[in-house]
């Protein structure tokens, strides 16, 4: 179960729409061990691609150091699929290396609506979980 404060949930969708047709990506940080996503950090997609995303390596280090210093961790790692469904691709699964994170996928393939889903990806196994937009 992923509980996301409404402003963050809405901001992720807005980010995905804004970057469409390129994939959008980012993190929601929260206190380490709390499983509470509290601080949204949009990241630049260094690949700038409609089918691939990658955090800029320098930006990623800055963010990871910031989280470490604030005793935070990446509670959510999100990205968008712009022409396919909101389900982790083989690539997403192969490259998921934060076993504690909720992997949020947003699909902007349909201009009329946005599909917002969340998954745990651990040791190559994908498990979808319900998402609650709170407050």
């Amino acid at each position, binding site marked *: 179960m992923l509980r996301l404060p409404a402003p963050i949930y809405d901001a992720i969708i807005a980010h995905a729409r804004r970057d469409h047709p390129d994939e959008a990506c980012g993190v929601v940080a929260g206190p380490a061990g709390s499983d509470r996503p509290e601080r949204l950090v949009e990241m630049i997609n260094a690949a700038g*691609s409609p*089918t*691939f995303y990658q955090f800029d390596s320098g930006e990623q280090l800055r963010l990871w150091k910031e989280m470490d210093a604030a005793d935070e961790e990446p509670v959510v790692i999100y990205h968008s699929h712009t022409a396919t469904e909101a389900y982790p691709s083989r*690539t997403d699964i*192969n*490259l998921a290396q934060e076993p504690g994170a909720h992997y949020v996928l947003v699909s902007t393939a349909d201009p009329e609506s946005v599909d917002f889903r969340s998954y745990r990806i651990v040791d190559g196994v994908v498990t979808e979980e319900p998402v609650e937009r709170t407050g």
Partner: protein
Amino acid sequence: MAVEVKIPTILRTYTDGAKSVPGEGANLAALFEDLESRHAGLRSRLITEDGSLHRFVNVYVNDEDVRFTGSLDTTLSDGDAVTILPAVAGGSLDPRRAAPTR
């Protein structure tokens, strides 16, 4: 050269849970050999079979991505801070064109 290496969550199974371990080496390649001697299996998560840095592993020496400083040939000095982070990446791209890290 004696350095401190920060280990990401996913690789802490090789360090008995330690977030940071000491290491030695004149350059990054030598450091990884040194780490392998105490943390067996770690090196293969960082270096591919053809001897280069894994595409989706980021290594930084004093906050500089080593891809800009000579990759595995990056030289090390006493007291350097080495950080390893798995690159956050993915997307709907066909996996045959995006090599996984393992």
